């Protein structure tokens, strides 16, 4: 069985990575830790993308390997490669960072391949707490954002535990399989409460509207690679958990939660876009833009069809690359003290390659074809229309139109002619940015691989 061997390869690489990075804690040399990390992450990514074409199976009764889990393990591993390259630029303790990174990768692995609610809970905790530790290890200046992130994630986990305990009477095994809703019977109000609490708790992590006030502060206060990780990876892990909980476990109650999530999605989109319009700090602008993107992704989950899940999965892939690339550029500029929109004027002449890259990334976020973000939006809003959520598609389109205003503003400032000394980006930043832009362009012009991966993942999710 090739599939089982691949699954064991992934598990072995994960444990090896944890072990190696634990060893490297006692050494100074950061390059060995870096090389080992990237190599093992690449092995994990390749193995899991290969695994996604094999039929599903469950190991040890708790690790579900199917197209859904392997697609996301692959995505997270490849995104973490980019994050660990970005971290090289940073002067902090790299070996500690890589140790924490491997713990959170283990958490992501648990969430993506979860077969029960407990694994989701455990995994989410293993993803967020190392991130808090990463922020804390950056010194006192990051204390504020670390504390905010810590308090909010603890709160979210507490609420999640409460929601799980509410669902417990209806699903004593806590396994991720659909709850039975007696047709015609009244909706148990405990389940209703649980739905709301699930949405609230995961809404904190995925930056949905009323629960996302921490996002801009933490993103702005964190150093570049951690911001990229928070926006590009951690948020996506919570989305994976959300899909597993809502689209598998609570699918029988879709009539209830989909309206609820749709309203959340609309508010989130408007909140992100309206506040992004008035930002003058570019990093905050991107933080708000990533909030609005979270709203778009939620559209697919709210629709609660397999087409919607597929669309959300595609958009998660697209947004991961877009936001990591964008934060790589923005954070590098921030370290050269280029922060506000006014500071950005003339980047186009001082470093045209980076200005063009950022333009491509922003156009993709705004949904301009032939870039990856366009297909994500096309699929998301089509899925909303095909499930008869006309207003959801309309609001989504209005929002993607509104977003062009602030992206256009950034582009306008960047290409304003003003003699500026030329700016050099570090090799690591350039590598990450070019990788992201290449992904956006290649999968924008030829989206079939990601679309078929997403549709395989979507149907695997439905089969769970």
């Amino acid at each position, binding site marked *: 069985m090739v599939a089982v061997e691949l699954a064991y390869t992934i598990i072995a690489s994960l444990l090896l990575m944890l072990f190696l990075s634990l060893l490297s804690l006692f050494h100074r040399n950061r390059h060995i830790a870096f090389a080992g990390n990237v190599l093992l992450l690449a092995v994990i990514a390749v193995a899991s993308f290969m695994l996604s074409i094999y039929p599903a199976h469950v190991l040890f009764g708790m690790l579900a390997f199917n197209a859904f889990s392997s697609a996301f393990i692959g995505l997270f591993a490849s995104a973490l490669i980019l994050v660990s390259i970005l971290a090289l630029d940073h002067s902090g303790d790299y070996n500690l960072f890589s140790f924490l990174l491997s713990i959170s990768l283990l958490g992501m692995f648990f969430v993506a391949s979860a077969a029960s609610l407990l694994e989701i809970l455990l995994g989410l905790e293993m993803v967020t707490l190392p991130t808090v530790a990463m922020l804390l290890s950056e010194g006192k200046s990051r204390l504020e954002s670390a504390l905010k992130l810590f308090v909010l994630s603890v709160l979210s986990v507490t609420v999640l535990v409460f929601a799980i305990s509410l669902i417990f009477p209806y699903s004593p095994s806590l396994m991720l399989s659909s709850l039975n809703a007696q047709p015609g019977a009244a909706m148990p109000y405990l389940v209703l409460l649980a739905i709301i609490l699930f949405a609230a708790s995961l809404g904190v992590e995925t930056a949905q509207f009323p629960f996302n006030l921490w996002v801009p502060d933490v993103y702005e206060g964190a150093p570049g690679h951690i911001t990229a990780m928070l926006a590009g990876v951690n948020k996506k892990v919570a989305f994976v958990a959300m899909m597993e909980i809502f689209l598998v476990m609570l699918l029988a109650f879709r009539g209830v939660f989909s309206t609820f999530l749709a309203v959340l999605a609309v508010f989130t989109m408007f909140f992100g876009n309206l506040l992004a319009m008035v930002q003058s700090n570019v990093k905050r602008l991107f933080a708000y833009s990533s909030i609005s993107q979270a709203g778009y992704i939620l559209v697919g989950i709210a629709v609660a069809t397999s087409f919607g899940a597929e669309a959300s999965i595609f958009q998660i892939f697209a947004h991961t690359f877009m936001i990591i690339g964008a934060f790589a550029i923005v954070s590098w500029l921030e370290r050269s003290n280029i922060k506000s929109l006014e500071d950005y004027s003339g980047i186009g002449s001082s470093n045209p390659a980076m200005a063009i890259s950022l333009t491509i990334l922003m156009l993709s976020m*705004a949904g301009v074809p032939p870039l990856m973000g366009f297909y994500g939006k096309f699929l998301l809003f089509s899925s909303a229309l095909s499930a008869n959520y006309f207003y959801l598609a309309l609001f989504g389109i209005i929002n993607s139109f509104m977003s*062009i205003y602030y992206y256009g503003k950034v582009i*306008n400032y960047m290409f304003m002619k003003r003699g500026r000394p030329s700016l050099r980006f570090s090799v690591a930043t350039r590598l990450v940015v070019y990788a992201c832009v290449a992904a956006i362009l290649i999968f924008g012009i030829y989206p079939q691989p990601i679309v078929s991966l997403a549709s395989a993942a979507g149907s695997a999710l439905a089969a769970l």
Partner: protein
Amino acid sequence: MVAIPIAFFAAAALLGKRFSKLLACASTLIILIIALALIASAFVSGTINLSESYTFLPSLSINFSLALDPISLLLVTMSGIVLFAAALAGDVGEVDQKKSAILLLLFQVGATGLFLSGNFLVFFVFWDVTLVASFFFINALGSGNRKTASLKFLIYEIFASSMLLLGIMMLYTSPLHSLGFQALRGPLPSATQLTILIAMMLAFFVNMPVFPLHSWMPDAYTEAPTRGTMLLSGILSKFGGYGALIVLSSLTISKSYALYIASLAAISIFYAAFSMLGQKDIKRALSYASMLEMGIVLLGISSLSAIGLEGAAFAMFAYGMIMALMFLDVGVLFYSFGERDIRVLKGVLIEGRGIAFAFIFGAFAMVGVPLTAVFVGDILVFLGAFSSFGAYSLVPLLSIILLGAYLYFVIDKIFYRAKDHSKPVYVMDRIQGLGLALLVFFILLFGIMPFIVLNAFK
């Protein structure tokens, strides 16, 4: 045909400054020659209908399909002519040759792809490619007020493309589950049809532009560099016309809304004509003239009769070349005399004969003097409108009198009036003369022998 500009675009982006103009000219010339050869073959065989389809997203049943019918052939030829003229001569006073050539090639990719597209997804992709190219034409290469103008352009056009996307998705998620142009003819529920009609018409009306949605246009046309304005008014505004033609002629419910659209077209025509009368800047005045002409095109489309649709297509063909000619001429005029204000310029004829002749020819052609291509387009449009809406539809003809009067006034004021005439600071190059002559030649050619292309419509 789509692949060639893409290859040249990549080449121009990678190669140095010296080759950029050469590459732009070569790419546009090749496309023009192919288009003319296709026209010749269509003339010989009497019809043309090519289509190609590649699997693109099999799991979503979306194909990358290209199709060529008489209307798209007409518009591809027009865009080939305009692009070649713009590549050849449009770079008067251009600051950054390389950037301009790259954007021109990107625009060419979009324009050629859009007119050849066989389904709405391809249409939309190329629409946005062109949009980005045009945005950077204004933003990076435009004149004084370019930042505001380009942002305004971007916001309006992205609004248009979001509405277009909404329409496309309505079509895609309808029971037919198809993106092809002919799916619009299928049995769609009338509520869906109405949504598609409203969304797409909003998009196309912004793009053309039509009266209440036009306010991006004067700024964008005025601030864009000469090459950019030629492309914007000559080609970009025809996208909306082409799309409106496809959608209105296919949807079954459009008959009941035709009268409203025709009235909107008439309002737009008169609004443009009266706004034009008040302009001092020739470029700004011409941008209103371009709006007026798109109003006439929309009138032809809304007639929904065979002759009116044919006329609208031909009028777009003719107006594209005319507007490119006029804007190129004004660009050269501005570069030569450093002035565009009709109150200041005097006696241009004395020292700028080429400019003056081209302008006077263009003015005649715009008004629709027989033997120019516009005449053919206009007469077909008004015949079609007359057959659908009766005598009222001839009222917009009055606006052409206004247009003629204004142009007469301009010619009188800036080209004659010889007392202390304006002195040029720069004499027109031969290559710009060639560009102007090329456009004049094609306007005359298709004016004298419109049957070359109209034959294929039978």
